[in-house]
């Protein structure tokens, strides 16, 4: 085979020489330059094009819509300035939704991240069949929110629900989980905790693997208990990951929608219970924008929600940094 290739090589040579070596090299140089200049942009272009049309534009346009009396079906009914915001800040239903969101967010995030830390510490020890445990812990995260909400809706049902049945075994009267504020928040927070604890514990586990082992040895030499070295070595050692999870769960928690929406299975169309006792801000946005078609008002809710997200993320970021300074 190879002699054949060698013999063909010289026969090509004259053909290329006809155009002149300088010409060919020049052409190649131009093409290479073009390739270097243009191709990187072609590689990133799809992201930026799609992102502009379906990401940036809607984002900025929300601000514009929020300054109008804008009906989802009938369109723009005129510029109203900050009227939507003024109305929003005087709207008791909005404060109610904001309070519910914060309450469910705190009830879910704090226990969730603490439990995740504990589980990560368990998984960080030498274990037989480590992957099996890790996968088992992650399993809930794979399940869709809708399925989670349906299953927990049954578990927390007033009549014949499993949670009330278990409570009954220890002599507690059945709780009407959907009807009152705090119980409904606990039930919804439980869904969030169930779905996300394992995921966060895997993030912590990964970070723990990177904490230098010498630090533990030094702590042990100083006579630190296992508990003490966990709080003084492990937790500060995984601080960036803790901050990351706190910020991400803040943003996720403040956008909570599917769990409370589906917890209200009896068909009150996303109002969050008979007395709005578990309506979140996103549900309120949905009610106004897609139930009552008041797009301008919904857009104002969206922007306020965005500001709340950013502020909460910053506050949590700051808190998470301080926790370390204390420890």
């Amino acid at each position: 085979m190879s002699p054949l290739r060698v013999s063909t090589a010289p026969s090509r040579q004259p053909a290329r020489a006809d155009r002149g070596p300088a010409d060919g090299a020049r052409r190649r140089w131009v093409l290479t330059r073009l390739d270097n200049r243009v191709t990187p942009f072609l590689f990133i272009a799809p992201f930026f094009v799609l992102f502009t049309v379906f990401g940036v534009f809607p984002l900025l346009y929300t601000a514009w819509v929020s300054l109008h009396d804008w009906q989802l079906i009938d369109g723009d009914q005129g510029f109203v300035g900050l009227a939507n915001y003024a109305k929003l800040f005087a709207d008791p239903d909005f404060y109610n939704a904001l309070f519910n969101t914060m309450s469910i967010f705190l009830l879910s995030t704090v226990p969730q991240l603490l439990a995740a830390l504990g589980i990560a510490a368990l998984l960080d020890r030498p274990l037989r069949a480590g992957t099996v445990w890790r996968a088992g812990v992650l399993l809930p995260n794979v399940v869709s929110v809708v399925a989670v909400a349906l299953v927990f809706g049954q578990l927390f049902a007033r009549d014949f629900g499993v949670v009330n049945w278990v409570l009954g075994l220890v002599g507690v009267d059945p709780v009407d989980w959907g009807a009152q504020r705090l119980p409904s928040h606990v039930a919804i927070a439980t869904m969030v905790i169930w779905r996300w604890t394992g995921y966060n514990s895997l993030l912590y586990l990964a970070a723990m693997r990177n904490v230098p082992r010498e630090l533990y040895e030094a702590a042990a030499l100083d006579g630190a208990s296992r508990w003490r070295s966990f709080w003084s070595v492990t937790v500060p050692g995984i601080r960036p990951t803790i901050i990351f999870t706190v910020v991400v769960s803040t943003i996720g928690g403040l956008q909570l929608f599917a769990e409370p929406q589906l917890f209200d299975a009896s068909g009150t169309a996303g109002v969050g219970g008979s007395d709005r006792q578990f309506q979140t801000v996103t549900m309120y946005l949905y009610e106004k924008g897609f139930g009552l078609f008041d797009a301008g008002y919904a857009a104002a809710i969206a922007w306020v929600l965005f500001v709340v997200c950013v502020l909460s993320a910053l506050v949590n970021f700051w808190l998470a940094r301080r926790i370390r300074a204390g420890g």
Partner: protein
Amino acid sequence: MLVYALLVGVVAASAFPLYWSFVVSSSDSSAIGEASPPLIPGGYLLDNVRRVFDTVDFWLALQNSLIVSGTVTLSNVVLSSLAGFAFARLRFPGRNSLFLVVIGTVMVPAQLGVIPLYMVVGELGWYGRLEAVIVPGLINAFAVFWMRQACEEAVPTELVDAARVDGCSLWAVFWHVAVPAIRPQAAVLGMVTFMAAWNDFFWPLIVLDPNESLTVQVALSRLASGYFLDYSLMLTGATLGVLPVIIVFIVLARQIVNGITRVSVNG
């Protein structure tokens, strides 16, 4: 020993709601109303499955969910590999600031833009059609971020430079140097994207037509929207909707677990 006991407890708590869902979906709906709930699966699974298919067009939902999730996954993997490779290994003006834009958008809540996005989709004439869900999901910032990390980690600069010196075009470098190296990370991204797309609820609920283009999640929510709560019907639907991802998860658990662990090491 205590460690294993605690872990068994944690995994049992993780699995119980799924087990429970299966128990209810294999029980007669009247069994839920008895004094103590059934704790072992019964023999009504097929009956209940039939009722789910009678109540909503679950085949259509499965088909639509597959189309949406499949397209979104394929496109995210391809487009974010290209962008990630460019951000990690190519020199071009504005590279750093453009990448900052990508990172910034990871943090922006998607729900902020639903109202105008709804209008955009309307302008394009996509109301009630699968395009409305597919096209905005074709790429996301997290995927770009992820594949950039993958390229930094797995694609050696020397190899890229050597290929350039040998006269490879950038496309050829991407195809012959980067793609083989980043395949494992691309696979993890694909799985994560598929699951996220499969489980998406808020946007499909708003924009799809429940009679013609419903997805599995929207179909499930419809099962729950009656005045009379039929738990065995609802949970049978939930079980059916979860089954495909659970199977994928169990088959690929090792890669997914390792992939998630890698995100935080980098991030």
